[in-house]
């Protein structure tokens, strides 16, 4: 049973016309009719380039923004019907953000930072809270004695561990990770990704992992979704991402990722840039850069349909055009 179910989720940001900000010229369709579900205990990886709407989607799920339309169901309940102030939802749904330099208050000690959600949500207080902080620090791989120190005394990787401990403090069921490792050094990334997997097993958590790095998403998630200009283009099991992706955009994205092997020949790369989300092209949003465009793509928007079992693709030609990307990483 899915823990989180998103259907037809849409968020439009009105674009003001000139100085008269109450008159709108159009709307940035940041998230446009997106549907997917995340099973309990699994990880859904969301990939896409900047401006594709992946962060807006996460903000909608975190109830930091009101959707224009569509529903979010969490544990079977529509979150729009939750009674304000929605404290319970905000306890069980936690988030870890990209930049651990700006997500931790520099004037609070590590211990206070981790204890803060415990106190806000009235989970624990006093000595019990302090014991919990020590446990959490130990669990994320930091010395409990560091609780009296301040964020600036820690490296990026250690700060991200603090941010993770803070998210875990109140016993969440669902955690949104928005680019959790992209600000970290290469040798630290693997440490944090392994920690995320350990935590998931230990606490039986469900994850939404947002990343632009396809390899990261492939490694950590079971199912992944690819977004482009506010639309979900493909959803497939992560093991199929590299070799069996069907959407030309996913394939272009994979071909663009440089492989750490000098013997892999340079693949054909996608030309042009993503159009403005203010004026997305009619029909399929990727048709302006797609190698396989046919007249139908210019006029009719392809729906996201299940082409194979557990593999959804929003492309008129799915299953017909070359399913194998031009470049596949050699297996070690």
């Amino acid at each position: 049973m899915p823990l989180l179910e998103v259907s037809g989720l849409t968020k439009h940001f009105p674009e003001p016309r000139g100085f008269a900000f109450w008159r709108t010229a159009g709307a940035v369709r940041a998230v446009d009719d997106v549907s997917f579900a995340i099973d309990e205990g699994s990880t859904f990886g969301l990939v896409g380039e900047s401006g594709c709407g992946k962060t807006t989607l996460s903000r909608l799920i975190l109830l930091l923004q009101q959707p224009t339309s569509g529903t979010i169901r969490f544990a079977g309940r529509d979150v729009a019907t939750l009674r304000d102030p929605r404290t319970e939802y905000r306890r069980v749904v936690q988030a870890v953000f990209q930049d651990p330099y700006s997500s931790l208050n520099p004037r609070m000690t590590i211990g206070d930072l981790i204890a803060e959600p415990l106190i806000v949500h009235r989970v624990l207080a006093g000595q019990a809270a302090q014991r919990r902080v020590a446990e959490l620090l130990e669990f994320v791989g930091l010395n409990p004695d560091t609780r009296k120190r301040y964020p600036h005394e820690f490296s990026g990787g250690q700060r991200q561990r603090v941010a993770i401990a803070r998210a875990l403090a109140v016993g969440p069921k669902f955690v949104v990770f928005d680019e959790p490792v992209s600000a970290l050094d290469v040798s630290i990334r693997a440490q944090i990704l392994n920690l995320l997997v350990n935590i998931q097993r230990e606490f039986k958590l469900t994850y939404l992992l947002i990343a632009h790095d396809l390899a990261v998403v492939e490694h950590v998630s079971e199912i992944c979704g690819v977004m482009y200009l506010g639309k979900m283009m493909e959803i497939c099991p992560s093991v199929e991402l590299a070799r069996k992706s069907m959407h030309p955009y996913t394939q272009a994205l994979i071909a663009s990722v440089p492989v750490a092997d000098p013997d892999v020949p340079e693949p054909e790369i996608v030309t042009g840039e993503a159009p403005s989300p203010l004026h997305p092209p009619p029909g399929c949003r990727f048709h302006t850069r797609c190698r396989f465009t046919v007249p139908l793509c210019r006029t009719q928007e392809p729906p996201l349909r299940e082409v194979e079992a557990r593999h959804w693709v929003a492309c008129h030609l799915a299953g017909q055009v070359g399913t194998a990307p031009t470049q596949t990483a050699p297996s070690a």
Partner: protein
Amino acid sequence: MSANAMEIRDPPGPPQTAPTATEPLLAVAGLRTHFFTRYGIIRAVDGVTFNVGEGEIVGLVGESGSGKTMTSLSILRLVPLPAGRIVAGSIRFRGRDLLQLSEAEMRAVRGKQISMILQDPLTSLNPVYTIGNQVAESFLFHRDPATTRRDIASRVIEVLRRVRIPAAERLVRAYPHQFSGGMRQRVCAAIAIASRPALLIADEPTTALDVTIQAQFLQLLKRLRSEANLSIIYITHDLGVVARLCTRVIVMYAGRVIESGPVRAIYKSPGHPYTRALMKSVPRLGDRHERLFQIDGQPPYLMNMPPGCAFRPRCPNAQAICGQELPPDMPLGEGHAAACWFAGPRPAAGREGA
């Protein structure tokens, strides 16, 4: 003339006006750039030696704080003052030691013969000047007196075309905010190559770009290199980019070069335990594992460097000697060397999972 000055400084050796066939375009030797702070000396670059040949793309790889950016700023003599100082070493470029030049002579090198592209194209462009204006600046600064305004205008358009900016005639009047990230980085590349430099230093130029745009930019760099016989020092931490672009690789760790060699040798038979661990810890598409290979610990704090090898605290093969003496460069093959007492094929440092 500078050629005469050089001969006075280097009386022995063959008389030379241009670099000889044996001398590389750039030869950095024993470079040390230190920062003198209230709390102690930070050895950001500590004895770095490497060469860049003509038409080569050399990848300078390392994590943050490994000294790769400070090495490149030292080459341009742009080390932040007053704390930073180049305390030892030589940087020979086209037969002259850049560290011996006067500031005026250096200004003729900087931006003219050696130029640079930085990571963030938005902050490296001036928002209040047009693109054309900013590209023209390079021509105006290094101008020979015969050039006219019209010459410069046509050269600006020509150089924008070389970096594949569409409708260059029209876009010279545009401002940076009207460009996308990828296009802005192309403008930065245009400024860098405008004066037809021999060496281009690119410091993480694609880190801020999307992957599809990054792929396009890497293709552009490769084309510029073959069109203009440009040598490039490409600074990055992305091993995929290096494999796709570079001919040679220099791996830095804690201010020192720990391994260098041809790109194939580094990827196929890395000699230093750090290089091996780095190669293994990068998740690769299409090669899904339950756990990622991880390197434990963290890079050392440059103020309190451990004696001996800087990687010793994280290295699984460390022996007593590693903590006592700095390892020498062990030759491993044609132009391939690693600074490790036990360089050679051994298990990588780190472990499977946690």
